[in-house]
């Protein structure tokens, strides 16, 4: 035999294609039945998801597949009911808890809504004296006193203290600060020595209190001279 060429190999492959075993009929039938059941269940699930109750009608005429369809539909409806009941229970429980702890929840949200307000508490070491007895605290009326800046100039005329003085000295409309009034006489200088001397009392020879004093004084001096000696 000569070495086969490519054409020979291809012919052998074609022969191999025709010579192969077919699908065994038992295996094929079993596999087909399984696939048919899968298709039925998938169709039922799809219809139940899309149409709700239409699945039972679709599977009713297919023997065991119809029974499976109805049982699947019942199971899915029970599952839906249980899910709804569970959600309702969770919501109710959350509502009750929120009602019970509503104050804490409100405080919690208030703390978030006003984060800048700080509560300042007194220090623990209170230095104030203990108060015993009744303490009457009366509100003292607060009176505002006008603040007046007064600049004194020697040649200004006196003004009322309630008037505001223009310190900038810009001119018109300003009121001068009060100053010392001018003397009435013609001497505006120093007044030292102008105080009137008290008039001397007229000399009286009678022994009154004044003379006694003088005498006593002289007597006192005499006594000191005696002690020195």
């Amino acid at each position: 035999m000569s070495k086969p060429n490519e054409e020979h190999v291809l012919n052998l492959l074609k022969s191999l294609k025709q010579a192969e075993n077919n699908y065994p009929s038992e295996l094929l039938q079993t596999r087909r039945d399984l696939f048919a059941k899968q298709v039925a269940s998938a169709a039922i699930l799809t219809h139940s998801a899309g149409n709700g109750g239409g699945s039972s009608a679709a599977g009713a005429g297919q023997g065991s597949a119809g029974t499976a369809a109805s049982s699947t539909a019942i199971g899915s409806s029970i599952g839906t009911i249980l899910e709804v009941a569970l959600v309702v229970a969770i919501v109710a429980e959350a509502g009750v808890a929120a009602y019970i702890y509503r104050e804490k929840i409100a405080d919690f949200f208030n703390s978030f809504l006003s984060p800048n307000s700080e509560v300042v508490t007194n220090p623990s070491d209170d230095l104030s004296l203990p108060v015993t007895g009744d303490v009457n605290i009366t509100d003292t009326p607060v009176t505002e006193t006008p603040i007046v800046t007064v600049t004194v100039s020697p040649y200004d005329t006196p003004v009322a203290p309630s008037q505001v003085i223009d310190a900038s000295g810009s001119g018109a409309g300003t009121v001068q600060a009060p100053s010392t009034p001018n003397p009435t006489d013609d001497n505006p200088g120093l007044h030292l020595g102008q105080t009137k001397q008290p008039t001397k009392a007229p000399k009286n020879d009678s022994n009154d209190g004044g003379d006694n004093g003088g005498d006593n004084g002289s007597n006192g001096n005499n006594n000191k001279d005696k002690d020195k000696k």
Partner: protein
Amino acid sequence: MVKDGVALLKAAQKLDEEALTAIFDEFAPAIYKYALRLCHDAIEADNIVGDVFSQLLEQFAAGRGPRTNLRSYLYQTAYHLVVDRSRENKHTAPLEIAINLQERGQSIPTQTQIEERVLMEGLISAMNTELTEDQRHVIILRFLEDFSLKETAEIIGKEVNNVKVIQNRGIAKLRNALGLQLGDE
């Protein structure tokens, strides 16, 4: 009533039971043969057929699945399943694509039939031992399943030019193997 390809595919996408059953009847034997060529086990090939059509059903139920070439899609699914299983457990059993020529043919084979049977057994042996996995897939898809180069490339996930190279190398290996066998004899 068996619809044409496009209408059958559209009906199957809507999970029409008749359409899906018709698809199974049309493609299951071919998928079985393909799987049997690759995994050499009838039970394993049957399981692969079941998995292929289960995946097809899941894809249709999820709104996905093939839109145009259903045959290529089924073979591609079978190819991936076979590759995954071959990675899990390496089969070393000989390919028993039972050449039932003896049963089909006459009781007393002629010299030509004997030579052809010898060549066939040599070809099967070479496909199992000499070819790489890619070469075996390409040879089977191209010459036993009659897929085009483009379809083969889509199924095994390679470029068309790459498939051409793989095919030529595979055929060359088979030629060499058969020549060596014939030379030994």
